[in-house]
Protein backbone atom coordinates (compact mmCIF):
# COMPACT_ATOMS: atom_id res chain seq x y z
CA UNK A 1 0.00 0.00 0.00
CA UNK A 2 1.15 3.53 -0.74
CA UNK A 3 0.77 6.63 1.39
CA UNK A 4 1.63 10.15 0.28
CA UNK A 5 2.43 13.08 2.51
CA UNK A 6 2.58 16.60 1.15
CA UNK A 7 4.68 19.47 2.42
CA UNK A 8 5.48 22.94 1.15
CA UNK A 9 8.51 25.17 1.32
CA UNK A 10 9.52 28.40 -0.35
CA UNK A 11 13.06 28.98 -1.53
CA UNK A 12 15.02 31.09 -3.96
CA UNK A 13 17.53 29.93 -6.53
CA UNK A 14 19.23 30.80 -9.75
CA UNK A 15 19.96 28.31 -12.51
CA UNK A 16 23.30 29.23 -14.02
CA UNK A 17 26.32 27.08 -14.71
CA UNK A 18 29.63 28.99 -14.82
CA UNK A 19 31.04 26.26 -17.09
CA UNK A 20 28.63 27.41 -19.81
CA UNK A 21 28.66 30.78 -21.57
CA UNK A 22 25.90 33.35 -21.07
CA UNK A 23 24.00 32.52 -24.24
CA UNK A 24 23.95 28.81 -23.43
CA UNK A 25 22.78 29.48 -19.88
CA UNK A 26 19.95 31.62 -21.26
CA UNK A 27 19.03 28.93 -23.79
CA UNK A 28 18.99 26.13 -21.22
CA UNK A 29 17.47 27.90 -18.23
CA UNK A 30 15.50 30.82 -19.70
CA UNK A 31 14.22 33.18 -17.00
CA UNK A 32 15.58 30.85 -14.33
CA UNK A 33 19.08 32.05 -15.28
CA UNK A 34 18.61 35.56 -13.88
CA UNK A 35 21.71 35.93 -11.65
CA UNK A 36 19.71 37.96 -9.12
CA UNK A 37 17.71 34.85 -8.31
CA UNK A 38 13.98 34.28 -7.90
CA UNK A 39 11.84 31.98 -5.81
CA UNK A 40 9.21 29.26 -5.91
CA UNK A 41 6.59 27.84 -3.60
CA UNK A 42 7.73 24.25 -3.88
CA UNK A 43 5.20 21.53 -3.15
CA UNK A 44 6.74 18.20 -2.24
CA UNK A 45 4.86 14.92 -2.30
CA UNK A 46 6.57 12.01 -0.63
CA UNK A 47 5.14 8.56 -1.30
CA UNK A 48 5.92 5.73 1.10
CA UNK A 49 5.19 2.03 0.72
CA UNK A 50 4.34 -0.53 3.35
CA UNK A 51 1.64 -2.72 4.86
CA UNK A 52 -0.74 -1.46 7.54
CA UNK A 53 0.14 -2.74 10.97
CA UNK A 54 -2.56 -5.27 12.00
CA UNK A 55 -3.00 -3.58 15.39
CA UNK A 56 -2.77 0.13 14.58
CA UNK A 57 -4.09 -0.05 11.01
CA UNK A 58 -1.34 2.33 9.98
CA UNK A 59 1.60 1.89 7.60
CA UNK A 60 3.65 4.40 9.48
CA UNK A 61 3.00 7.03 12.12
CA UNK A 62 2.31 10.18 10.11
CA UNK A 63 3.62 12.25 13.01
CA UNK A 64 7.01 10.63 12.39
CA UNK A 65 6.74 11.30 8.67
CA UNK A 66 5.89 14.92 9.36
CA UNK A 67 8.90 15.23 11.64
CA UNK A 68 11.28 13.65 9.12
CA UNK A 69 10.09 15.98 6.36
CA UNK A 70 10.38 18.96 8.68
CA UNK A 71 13.91 18.11 9.82
CA UNK A 72 15.35 16.82 6.56
CA UNK A 73 13.75 19.17 4.06
CA UNK A 74 11.73 22.09 5.39
CA UNK A 75 14.11 23.30 8.11
CA UNK A 76 17.18 23.42 5.86
CA UNK A 77 15.40 24.68 2.71
CA UNK A 78 12.40 26.83 3.62
CA UNK A 79 13.06 30.54 3.10
CA UNK A 80 16.61 29.79 2.02
CA UNK A 81 18.60 30.61 -1.07
CA UNK A 82 19.39 27.15 -2.42
CA UNK A 83 22.60 28.15 -4.22
CA UNK A 84 24.08 29.85 -1.16
CA UNK A 85 22.65 27.97 1.78
CA UNK A 86 21.81 24.42 0.77
CA UNK A 87 24.66 22.15 -0.30
CA UNK A 88 25.34 20.67 -2.84
CA UNK A 89 23.78 23.57 -4.74
CA UNK A 90 26.86 25.68 -4.20
CA UNK A 91 28.43 23.25 -6.69
CA UNK A 92 25.58 21.92 -8.84
CA UNK A 93 22.70 23.81 -10.44
CA UNK A 94 19.49 23.71 -8.37
CA UNK A 95 17.21 22.71 -11.23
CA UNK A 96 13.97 21.00 -10.25
CA UNK A 97 15.55 17.73 -11.45
CA UNK A 98 18.63 18.09 -9.21
CA UNK A 99 16.56 19.30 -6.25
CA UNK A 100 14.22 16.31 -6.54
CA UNK A 101 17.15 13.89 -6.56
CA UNK A 102 18.76 15.66 -3.59
CA UNK A 103 15.51 15.43 -1.64
CA UNK A 104 15.43 11.69 -2.36
CA UNK A 105 19.02 11.32 -1.13
CA UNK A 106 18.21 13.17 2.08
CA UNK A 107 15.00 11.26 2.77
CA UNK A 108 16.00 7.72 1.82
CA UNK A 109 18.08 6.94 4.93
CA UNK A 110 15.63 8.73 7.24
CA UNK A 111 12.88 6.24 6.49
CA UNK A 112 15.05 3.19 6.98
CA UNK A 113 14.29 3.30 10.71
CA UNK A 114 10.52 3.33 10.04
CA UNK A 115 8.24 0.50 8.83
CA UNK A 116 7.72 2.37 5.53
CA UNK A 117 9.99 2.50 2.50
CA UNK A 118 10.52 5.59 0.39
CA UNK A 119 8.95 4.89 -2.98
CA UNK A 120 8.57 8.18 -4.88
CA UNK A 121 9.41 11.84 -4.53
CA UNK A 122 7.38 14.31 -6.59
CA UNK A 123 8.35 17.97 -6.50
CA UNK A 124 6.20 20.72 -7.97
CA UNK A 125 8.36 23.73 -8.76
CA UNK A 126 5.28 25.51 -10.06
CA UNK A 127 1.76 24.31 -10.74
CA UNK A 128 2.86 23.63 -14.32
CA UNK A 129 6.16 21.85 -13.74
CA UNK A 130 6.87 18.81 -11.61
CA UNK A 131 9.61 16.23 -11.39
CA UNK A 132 9.33 12.66 -10.13
CA UNK A 133 12.16 10.43 -8.92
CA UNK A 134 12.08 6.86 -7.73
CA UNK A 135 15.68 6.51 -6.68
CA UNK A 136 18.09 3.95 -7.97
Amino acid at each position, binding site marked *: MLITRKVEFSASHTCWNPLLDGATNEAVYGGEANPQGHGHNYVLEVTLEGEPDPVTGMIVDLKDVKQVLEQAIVAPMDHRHLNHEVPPFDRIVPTAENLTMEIWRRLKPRFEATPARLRLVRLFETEDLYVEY*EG*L
Partner: protein
Amino acid sequence: MPQVRVTRRYRFSASHRLHTPALDEARNSAIYGKCNNPYGHGHDYLLEVTIAGEPDAVTGRLAPLQDLDRFVERVILKAVAHRNLNTEVAEFSMLVPTTENLAAVVAARLAEAWPAAFAARAARLEKVRIHETKRNIFEVRVDPAVRSE
Protein backbone atom coordinates in the same frame (compact mmCIF):
# COMPACT_ATOMS: atom_id res chain seq x y z
CA MET B 1 21.85 5.83 -13.89
CA PRO B 2 19.33 8.12 -12.19
CA GLN B 3 16.10 8.41 -14.15
CA VAL B 4 13.76 11.28 -13.48
CA ARG B 5 10.42 12.16 -14.99
CA VAL B 6 9.66 15.78 -15.79
CA THR B 7 6.06 16.78 -16.40
CA ARG B 8 5.04 20.06 -17.93
CA ARG B 9 1.45 21.30 -17.98
CA TYR B 10 -0.14 23.21 -20.85
CA ARG B 11 -3.63 24.56 -21.31
CA PHE B 12 -5.80 24.93 -24.38
CA SER B 13 -9.45 25.54 -25.08
CA ALA B 14 -11.22 23.77 -27.92
CA SER B 15 -14.68 22.71 -28.98
CA HIS B 16 -15.92 19.32 -30.06
CA ARG B 17 -19.00 17.24 -30.67
CA LEU B 18 -19.15 13.55 -29.92
CA HIS B 19 -20.97 11.91 -32.80
CA THR B 20 -20.17 8.98 -35.04
CA PRO B 21 -21.67 8.45 -38.51
CA ALA B 22 -21.36 4.73 -37.84
CA LEU B 23 -24.42 4.95 -35.57
CA ASP B 24 -27.89 6.42 -36.01
CA GLU B 25 -29.10 9.60 -34.31
CA ALA B 26 -30.83 7.76 -31.48
CA ARG B 27 -27.76 5.65 -30.69
CA ASN B 28 -25.47 8.69 -30.84
CA SER B 29 -27.75 10.54 -28.48
CA ALA B 30 -27.96 7.58 -26.12
CA ILE B 31 -24.19 7.01 -26.02
CA TYR B 32 -22.85 10.55 -25.97
CA GLY B 33 -25.71 12.32 -24.18
CA LYS B 34 -25.13 16.06 -23.81
CA CYS B 35 -21.83 15.72 -25.67
CA ASN B 36 -23.84 14.88 -28.81
CA ASN B 37 -25.36 18.39 -28.98
CA PRO B 38 -25.26 19.24 -32.74
CA TYR B 39 -23.81 22.69 -32.03
CA GLY B 40 -20.91 21.25 -30.09
CA HIS B 41 -19.44 22.45 -26.81
CA GLY B 42 -15.96 23.08 -25.48
CA HIS B 43 -13.49 22.49 -22.69
CA ASP B 44 -10.46 24.11 -21.12
CA TYR B 45 -8.19 21.14 -21.56
CA LEU B 46 -5.15 20.68 -19.34
CA LEU B 47 -2.40 18.75 -21.11
CA GLU B 48 0.46 17.10 -19.21
CA VAL B 49 3.48 15.97 -21.19
CA THR B 50 5.92 13.73 -19.33
CA ILE B 51 9.47 13.13 -20.46
CA ALA B 52 11.97 10.83 -18.79
CA GLY B 53 15.66 10.11 -18.70
CA GLU B 54 18.87 11.04 -16.99
CA PRO B 55 19.44 14.75 -16.39
CA ASP B 56 22.44 16.20 -18.22
CA ALA B 57 25.46 16.19 -15.90
CA VAL B 58 26.40 19.79 -16.73
CA THR B 59 23.01 21.52 -16.92
CA GLY B 60 21.09 19.39 -14.42
CA ARG B 61 18.19 19.44 -16.88
CA LEU B 62 16.52 16.64 -18.78
CA ALA B 63 15.88 19.08 -21.63
CA PRO B 64 15.67 22.87 -21.77
CA LEU B 65 12.10 23.74 -20.78
CA GLN B 66 11.98 26.43 -23.44
CA ASP B 67 12.71 23.79 -26.08
CA LEU B 68 9.97 21.53 -24.72
CA ASP B 69 7.51 24.43 -24.56
CA ARG B 70 8.25 25.50 -28.12
CA PHE B 71 7.98 21.90 -29.30
CA VAL B 72 4.57 21.34 -27.69
CA GLU B 73 3.38 24.72 -28.95
CA ARG B 74 4.44 23.92 -32.52
CA VAL B 75 3.31 20.29 -32.65
CA ILE B 76 0.11 20.42 -30.56
CA LEU B 77 -1.11 23.72 -29.18
CA LYS B 78 -1.03 25.62 -32.47
CA ALA B 79 -3.21 22.93 -34.02
CA VAL B 80 -5.80 22.60 -31.26
CA ALA B 81 -6.01 25.84 -29.28
CA HIS B 82 -9.25 27.67 -29.96
CA ARG B 83 -10.15 25.15 -32.66
CA ASN B 84 -13.14 23.02 -33.43
CA LEU B 85 -11.57 19.58 -33.09
CA ASN B 86 -14.11 17.91 -35.40
CA THR B 87 -13.68 20.28 -38.32
CA GLU B 88 -10.18 21.70 -37.90
CA VAL B 89 -7.99 18.82 -36.70
CA ALA B 90 -7.40 16.34 -39.52
CA GLU B 91 -7.47 13.13 -37.48
CA PHE B 92 -11.01 13.86 -36.28
CA SER B 93 -12.53 13.97 -39.74
CA MET B 94 -12.70 10.19 -39.35
CA LEU B 95 -12.51 9.79 -35.61
CA VAL B 96 -14.79 10.86 -32.73
CA PRO B 97 -12.94 13.50 -30.67
CA THR B 98 -13.45 11.84 -27.32
CA THR B 99 -10.63 12.69 -24.98
CA GLU B 100 -9.46 9.07 -25.22
CA ASN B 101 -8.93 9.65 -28.94
CA LEU B 102 -7.55 13.14 -28.36
CA ALA B 103 -4.92 11.78 -25.96
CA ALA B 104 -3.95 9.14 -28.53
CA VAL B 105 -3.71 11.74 -31.32
CA VAL B 106 -1.63 14.09 -29.16
CA ALA B 107 0.69 11.23 -28.16
CA ALA B 108 1.08 10.13 -31.78
CA ARG B 109 1.87 13.64 -33.02
CA LEU B 110 4.39 14.23 -30.24
CA ALA B 111 6.02 10.84 -30.79
CA GLU B 112 6.34 11.39 -34.52
CA ALA B 113 7.94 14.82 -34.19
CA TRP B 114 10.06 14.00 -31.12
CA PRO B 115 13.13 12.36 -32.73
CA ALA B 116 13.81 15.29 -35.08
CA ALA B 117 13.52 17.84 -32.28
CA PHE B 118 15.23 15.99 -29.44
CA ALA B 119 17.49 13.46 -31.14
CA ALA B 120 20.56 14.96 -29.50
CA ARG B 121 19.15 14.61 -26.00
CA ALA B 122 18.80 11.67 -23.66
CA ALA B 123 15.21 12.53 -22.79
CA ARG B 124 12.42 10.35 -24.10
CA LEU B 125 8.69 10.90 -24.26
CA GLU B 126 6.97 8.93 -21.53
CA LYS B 127 3.29 9.77 -21.38
CA VAL B 128 0.51 12.19 -22.19
CA ARG B 129 -2.25 13.04 -19.77
CA ILE B 130 -5.25 15.20 -20.62
CA HIS B 131 -7.69 16.63 -18.12
CA GLU B 132 -10.87 17.25 -20.08
CA THR B 133 -12.46 18.74 -16.99
CA LYS B 134 -11.37 18.67 -13.37
CA ARG B 135 -13.08 15.34 -13.02
CA ASN B 136 -12.20 13.48 -16.24
CA ILE B 137 -8.54 12.63 -16.82
CA PHE B 138 -7.13 10.50 -19.63
CA GLU B 139 -3.63 9.08 -19.76
CA VAL B 140 -1.72 7.27 -22.47
CA ARG B 141 1.84 6.00 -22.49
CA VAL B 142 3.87 6.84 -25.54
CA ASP B 143 4.71 3.83 -27.68
CA PRO B 144 8.35 2.91 -26.93
CA ALA B 145 8.79 1.85 -30.57
CA VAL B 146 8.71 5.45 -31.70
CA ARG B 147 10.85 6.85 -28.91
CA SER B 148 14.00 8.65 -29.84
CA GLU B 149 16.43 6.31 -28.08
